[in-house]
């Protein structure tokens, strides 16, 4: 199976809503709009879809199929790894296709990440919520009673350790925040288009949970995204150039369900996923042309770059310096603006952007991009990696 799986499937359709704060659309409408856009983008009809991976919460496969008009769901599965879910879902979609369980698989994500906490006064109420999955129990029992409710607070437990162990300067986090914001200026759908970020702005912003300042944290957004995965063979008959899923992996820290008792607080799921993903895709970190790195928080980007092999532990600050991760640099990072500045769609927006880069149709296009790497990061440090390439 291994040799029949990697490089035999492709992303053929992408869809996304606008990224906004305060949507007039119900969360279900966002998810269904993105899903229909992805199917249409692929040149397919809902009846062609027979595999569905729904978002972690909000909507079920059964509902999505019924509202889209998908008559025969042959395979579905839910992936519950928080923000690592969408990128990990690609390997599940590929397995279903390579194993003959499904032909065309829809992966979707969407939420009212801004409005859920701050509904407009006239908004119709919704009881739909995310599925917190494995971290719900730990936060409820062990973190929230200590005043740690938000992801920024939970992750700061190991980001503090990271910063102090290696003497990570704020310059490094600022470089990530500013690169993402610069790229958002070029992206037609980015929430933060038109709102550039200077180093002075970054420095002047208050702390949320140390070392995280305001601009180290991603933007809460109402949005949805979706992709369609199919076999490479079928992909070659469809409208867009096939974007091949060359390899991917997931990984979990030990233990995955809580942070405190990990032998190494700085060893996350991606440290285990990254070598698996590169081996499966048959490429090395320095073959990659575009990096779409899960950027819930800037310092989490730095840790992931080290896990991926772009720097030694503690060496990410040098990697992100001197424009290396800006458009035009050697490793352009989050060319759509990322979760930090395009909007937070749980990293499926990173998959959408990587697909556009490899089609050659991105708003901030990397010249001759042939290989893109996407990561996901979620819950209490779960990780996922996807390596995508142009069809040759």
């Amino acid at each position: 199976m291994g040799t029949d799986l990697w490089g035999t499937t492709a992303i053929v359709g992408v869809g996304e809503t606008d990224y906004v704060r305060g949507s007039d659309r119900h969360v279900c409408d966002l998810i269904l709009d993105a899903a229909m856009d992805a199917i249409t983008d692929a040149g397919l009809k809902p009846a062609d879809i027979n595999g569905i991976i729904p978002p972690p919460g909000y909507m079920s496969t059964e509902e999505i199929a019924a509202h889209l008009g998908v008559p025969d769901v042959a395979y579905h599965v839910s992936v519950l790894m928080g923000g690592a879910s969408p990128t990990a879902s690609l390997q599940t979609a590929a397995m279903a296709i390579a194993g003959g369980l499904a032909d065309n698989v829809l992966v979707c994500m969407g939420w009212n990440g801004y409005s859920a906490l701050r509904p407009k006064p006239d908004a119709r109420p919704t009881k739909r919520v995310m599925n917190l999955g494995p971290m719900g129990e730990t936060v409820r029992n062990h973190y929230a009673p200590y005043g740690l409710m938000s992801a920024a607070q939970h992750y700061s437990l190991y980001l503090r350790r990271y910063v102090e162990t290696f003497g990570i300067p704020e310059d490094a986090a600022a470089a990530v925040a500013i690169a993402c914001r610069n790229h958002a200026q070029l992206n037609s759908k980015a929430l933060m288009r038109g709102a550039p970020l200077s180093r002075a702005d970054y420095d002047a912003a208050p702390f949320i949970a140390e070392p995280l300042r305001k601009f180290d944290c991603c933007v809460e957004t109402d949005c949805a995204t979706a992709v369609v995965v199919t076999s490479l063979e079928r992909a070659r008959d469809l409208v867009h150039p096939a974007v091949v899923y060359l390899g991917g992996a997931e990984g979990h820290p030990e233990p995955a369900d809580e942070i405190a008792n990990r032998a190494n607080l700085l060893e996350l799921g991606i440290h285990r996923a990254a070598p698996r993903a590169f081996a499966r895709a048959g490429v090395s970190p320095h073959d990659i042309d575009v990096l779409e790195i899960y950027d819930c928080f800037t310092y989490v980007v730095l840790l992931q770059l080290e896990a991926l092999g772009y720097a030694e532990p503690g060496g990410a600050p040098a990697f992100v310096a001197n424009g290396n991760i800006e458009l035009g640099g050697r490793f352009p990072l989050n060319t759509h603006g990322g979760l930090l500045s395009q909007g937070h769609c749980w990293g499926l927006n990173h998959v959408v952007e990587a697909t556009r880069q490899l089609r050659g149709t991105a708003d901030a296009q990397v010249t001759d991009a042939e290989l893109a790497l996407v990561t996901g990061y979620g819950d209490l440090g779960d990780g996922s990696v996807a390596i995508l390439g142009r069809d040759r």
Partner: protein
Amino acid sequence: MRTYVPTPEWIVLDWHHACIAAELLCIQRCTGCGRWRHPPRRFCPACQSDQATFEPVTGSGSVLSFAVSHRSLDPGWQAHAPYATLLVELDEGPRLLAATTTPPGEIRIGQRLAVRTEALSENFVLVWADPASHDEPTSMAPRARGNPHD
């Protein structure tokens, strides 16, 4: 000031009940091989035994890391922002979070700590940790700086 107090269940509840009964911090210990472990688990990862007890620990440990929150969704904690939450490594080995009355600027990784528990309900104890110092008068009780659970 309202502050969230959970109602634990299953073996987490057993842990809280053990701490309340002993009026001390207790930690799960494997009957098979003697290893300490936290949070409570059904099987020992070293010897797979499911026989374990909750035993009092010395209450001594050190700061492995800490969070400094400048805002909180919890009104009780928000009133004390910025506040630190300590990731404590007990001398017995297991680690756990602890609230502290020590100002964030006075906390250092590696600092020695003394841990105590406070029952907030019949089913929940909060763990507190503050620097173990022989210089401080004993009247420097944790509540002196304000307890978000007051």
